[in-house]
């Protein structure tokens, strides 16, 4: 079975500061990993994805994530956050040959002016 842990339910960062949102997954095979963002009262939008290859993947709006297999982690990073980045961020995992996708509990990001 696969699972995802986002240990930080809430993160507050000052505008212009750097950001890291943590994600750890559990899956015995090779995972497909994703980060999604959800703005208030909206559906989810895909930020970035990892299937294979370069462990550092670039996404939209300056976000990137690094797949570290030895640590079963896929943390999301951004060098300088903007007030519009305030949202809930979900990490998710799925697997080849399996239509099931498992989401983490989400991290609510608040940007301080």
């Amino acid at each position, binding site marked *: 079975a696969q699972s995802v842990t986002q240990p930080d339910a809430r993160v507050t960062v000052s505008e212009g500061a750097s950001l890291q949102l943590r994600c750890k997954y559990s899956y015995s095979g090779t995972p497909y990993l994703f980060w999604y963002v959800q703005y208030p*009262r909206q559906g989810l939008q895909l930020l970035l994805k990892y299937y294979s290859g370069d462990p550092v993947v670039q996404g939209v709006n300056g976000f990137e994530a690094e797949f570290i297999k030895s640590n079963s982690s896929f943390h999301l990073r951004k060098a300088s956050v903007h007030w519009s980045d305030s949202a809930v961020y979900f990490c998710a995992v799925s697997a080849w040959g399996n239509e*099931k*996708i498992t989401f983490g509990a989400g991290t609510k990001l608040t940007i301080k002016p």
Partner: protein
Amino acid sequence: AQTIHQWPVAEIKAVGSPLSLGCTIKGKSSPNLYWYWQATGGTLQQLFYSITVGQVESVVQLNLSASRPKDDQFILSTEKLLLSHSGFYLCAWSLRRGEQYFGPGTRLTVL
């Protein structure tokens, strides 16, 4: 460009009443389709998925059912709503496993 539409935008229903939520995808042929439920402030729970017309797989039992009557349409329904059905329902599509694209959602309140 592909678009995904969900209806209704919001519903307020009584316990025990029936429910039907819809999802339509335009601009993609034979997508995989998914239904999710999200409690207020919570994570997403995958409910159903479908890889072809007429074929639906259940991921979790929540006294709900789903059908795919057409290639571009996915319906979520129940004959009897429970209080626990309240939440945000999201439809999604994909052409490749995991990389899913979500609709705007339907907010359901059961009283």
